[in-house]
């Protein structure tokens, strides 16, 4: 256990040392020391502000993540299973993939107002095409031999979906989920900065206006920690359980 986590610990110590060393040569206002950031973190935590904003951001991440994953999976399956639908709408996906996140966010705010729904919609729409493309490739990779078996044994559509397509897609879904989590929380911050009155993104925007770099780093690191905890505590364990059958 220790041997396996040792390189990670070493890398973290090295990063802290480099940071502390660089902070010694730069003005404190531009690059505060790790201890100054820790102090800012403690202060924000003690006042309760940190938790309030983390919770707001995490809530948006969760809702838009679930939306993007479920809709993206449905779209990806449709495109992957039907060449006709893929020829018709595959191009839309390409356009969405290349649409800058900022454009989607601004348009959503203009069309739907500065609302929570618009914010979550904009984030989900940014992630949806990535999920759809991954799932589309996954659906295409399904072994037709298994489908033939299901046809001969007269499985219903639902049973084929539930016991053939979805289990086959599990590794693809986890790949999409992991890259999705990382992408979504970054976009949520932009959404909060542009049109919300709470959340880590909103708070960073305020701190930017008063040039509080320690505060900016404190909030960023806190949320990175949250996302890492979700990744290692939930996603990795869940995935390991789902692919036990690999033997």
């Amino acid at each position: 256990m220790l041997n396996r986590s040792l390189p990670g610990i070493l890398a973290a110590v090295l990063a802290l040392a480099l940071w502390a060393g660089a902070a010694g040569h730069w003005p404190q206002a531009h690059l505060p020391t790790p201890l100054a950031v820790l102090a800012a973190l403690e202060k924000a935590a003690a006042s309760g502000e940190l938790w309030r904003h983390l919770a707001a951001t995490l809530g948006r991440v969760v809702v838009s993540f679930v939306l993007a994953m479920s809709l993206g999976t449905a779209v990806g399956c449709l495109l992957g299973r039907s060449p006709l639908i893929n020829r018709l709408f595959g191009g839309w996906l390409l356009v969405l993939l290349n649409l800058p996140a900022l454009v989607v966010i601004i348009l959503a705010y203009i069309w739907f107002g500065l609302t929570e729904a618009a914010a979550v919609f904009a984030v989900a729409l940014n992630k949806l095409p990535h999920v759809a493309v991954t799932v589309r490739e996954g659906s295409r990779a399904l072994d037709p031999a298994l489908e033939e078996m299901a046809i001969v044994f007269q499985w219903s559509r639902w049973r084929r979906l539930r016991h053939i397509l979805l289990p086959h897609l599990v590794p693809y879904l986890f790949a999409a989920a992991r890259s999705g989590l990382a992408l979504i929380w970054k976009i949520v911050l932009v959404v909060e900065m542009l049109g919300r009155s709470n959340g880590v993104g909103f708070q960073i925007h305020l701190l930017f206006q008063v040039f509080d770099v320690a505060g900016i780093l404190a909030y960023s690191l806190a949320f990175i920690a949250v996302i890492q905890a979700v990744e290692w505590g939930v996603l990795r364990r869940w995935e390991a359980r789902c692919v036990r059958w690999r033997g």
Partner: protein
Amino acid sequence: MCGGGVDLTIERKQFGDRLILQRFALCVRAGEAVALTGPSGRGKSTVLRIVAGLDRDFHGQRQLDQAVRVTMVFQEPRLLPWRTARQSLLLCQPPGGAEAVAAMLQAVGLAGAEDLYPAQMSLGMQRRAALARALVMQPDLLILDEAFASLDQTTAEAMRALLRSERQRRPFTLLMATHSPDDLALVDRVVAL
């Protein structure tokens, strides 16, 4: 009609430009056991796939009673990688339920291996599970595509004995493609391709 069995006429079957079968007729009466033999590439598997309804892209006619329950053992086991042997059988919703599944897995020699995933089984075990899946459904027509190939002699003979006793207990139509002379003792008639 061939007495409630399989009535197949293939005028022509091509893969692209390659002609596989021409003017081929097959009539299997209900309850009859027929083996297709012949060198590889003559279209044995193609005939089986057409009978099973997996390949409808041919010139000709296939008549099979709608009520006939068809099961098949493919050349490869085709078990679901993410389901155990027991789950794979249960998912087909066999008439006898969980009890029949347990009994059938025992009959093919997989007692104790019911909860293994295909990746944890040898190819021979997977093939036996595939045979169990086809038999537990109590088919009216069982299609075997080289089902006993690559099993060791003893196991292959045990599987043949099981098939024989299952057919004695509850007669069903059998259509098999085979290379092995040992399989021919199972059938009433041999069709050379």
